[in-house]
């Protein structure tokens, strides 16, 4: 009860700007970094607006408990978890109903991109930890986990990029922030495997008519494409240094 959220007077002002000063189709700043943890097989940190999300991959590794192993493919497990200090009001540690559901849909979104048949009997464990939350944690989590999977060297059909689309009044906005998530009229997280334009996660909350929905869907695809380009850039970056040495290296050394 110490922290009661206050609803802003207007979610979009007379100049068409949102509460954090963005235009309807403007995303928040995003930062991606790959390979941030030493012990994990793959890891990534994504800072997206006020979100700060760490993803780590362990595997392919032996399945425990053993009876869960699948004879013909890898068992993909996801744990999405929010830190108690990730929100103003402390969250009780451990999984709640929301995080169990999110773990399930995130697992589906990522599993579509993994060549699971390549690792029969093995487990691929994906951990998504929300260290600071600011709306859109599931999409930031998928974006981070997909980078971590790539860094772990797991055979993949493509990267999974994700983003959220919101609705305020009748205006469709991209990447809703905290206020819009709390008081907006609709929210639609979407994840896309971009190589084939396949939608692997789609959830929606709040009414949209036909034209709003098709606008939201196509905006969602474009946002994911943008995220996808950033992901590729983030994966390449650690190797840029090596590349320069080889190609443009000092011949006299």
């Amino acid at each position: 009860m110490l922290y009661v959220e206050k609803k802003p007077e207007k979610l979009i002002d007379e100049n068409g700007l949102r509460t954090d000063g963005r235009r309807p189709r403007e995303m928040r700043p995003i930062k991606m970094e790959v390979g941030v943890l030493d012990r994990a097989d793959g890891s990534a940190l994504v800072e997206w607006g006020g979100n700060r999300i760490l993803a780590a991959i362990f595997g392919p590794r032996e399945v425990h408990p053993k009876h869960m192993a699948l004879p013909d493919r890898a068992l993909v497990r996801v744990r999405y978890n929010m830190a108690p200090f990730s929100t103003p009001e402390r969250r009780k540690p451990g999984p709640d109903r929301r995080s169990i559901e999110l773990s399930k849909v995130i697992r589906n979104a990522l599993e579509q991109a993994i060549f699971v048949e390549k690792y029969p009997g093995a487990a691929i464990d994906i951990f998504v930890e929300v260290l600071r939350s600011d709306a859109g944690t599931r999409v930031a989590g998928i974006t981070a986990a997909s980078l971590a999977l790539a860094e772990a060297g797991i055979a993949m059909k493509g990267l999974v990029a994700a983003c959220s689309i919101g609705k305020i009044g009748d205006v469709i906005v991209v990447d809703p922030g905290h206020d819009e998530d709390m008081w907006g009229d609709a929210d639609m997280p979407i994840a896309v495997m971009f190589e084939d334009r396949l939608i692997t996660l789609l959830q929606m909350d709040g009414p949209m008519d036909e034209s709003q929905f098709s606008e939201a869907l196509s905006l969602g695809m474009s946002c994911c494409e943008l995220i996808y380009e950033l992901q590729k850039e983030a994966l390449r970056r650690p190797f840029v240094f090596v590349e320069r040495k080889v190609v443009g290296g000092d011949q006299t050394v």
Partner: protein
Amino acid sequence: MLRGRLWEGIKLYEEESIGSSLMKEYMLKELKNGRRIDGRAFHEIRRVEIRPGSYTKSCGEAWLSLGGTKVLVGVSADIGEPFPDTPEKGVMVSNVELLPLASPSFEPGPPDENSIELARIVDRALRSSKYVDLDRLAIAPGKLVYLLFLDMYVLDHKGNLADALTLATVVALARSKIPKVSLSSDGTPIVMDEQIPVPVSDPVINFTFVRIGDYILLDPSLEEEIASDAMITMAIDGQGRVCSIQLRRGFFRDVEIKKMYEIAREKRKELMSSLEGVLKVGQETT
């Protein structure tokens, strides 16, 4: 190991087998000829049978069968404090029980991810369509509100639990009555003998589609659910708007999603015309 559990259960993820891939091949062959294995058209809903509770100990009940998938939904009410972030609204709590008697693959114990997902699918459809007017369930805003508990029991799992549970819940709520509560001068609640209906509006209907190969099927049977490559549930309100979506398994293309929305909108009209009678009690209140 797989034999006994081949065709049963929502735990599809663990239960795909050689048997299901044979079944899928057979289904695809039939679909190519324009037929589903139970003889339905691609976008045909199975027979719906509804028995609203006429004498109930709780506030309201509905028993529903959707092509043999049997569910029972009970509505209970209480009064209590509102949530701090919505002080002026009543409280609604949804819970799904996958009873062990409904399928050999359902086990007793705390709710698993499937039952939580189902409860949240129904809950989101009701909330985002504002089917229950939670504002009118406040007695003393900020202090005292009605608490509504929606307990959804799955009795027999023959596919498409989401649509069956949503429809049964909508009917149960439309026919539920709760005791009227007034406040005395010092603010203590007085429970009256008078019963009032739960304030509901135009029903929201959930539609579940599966994709098998390139075929999109509405209202999957259990066999179709198991053989499917992808599954999605979307809720349509009285104005034909889409209120909630959950992509539950696999992937879809954007054109497929738009197409399914169109089909769902048409199907809602069709379904509503046959439902008017059962929803009558609720209709009178709005």
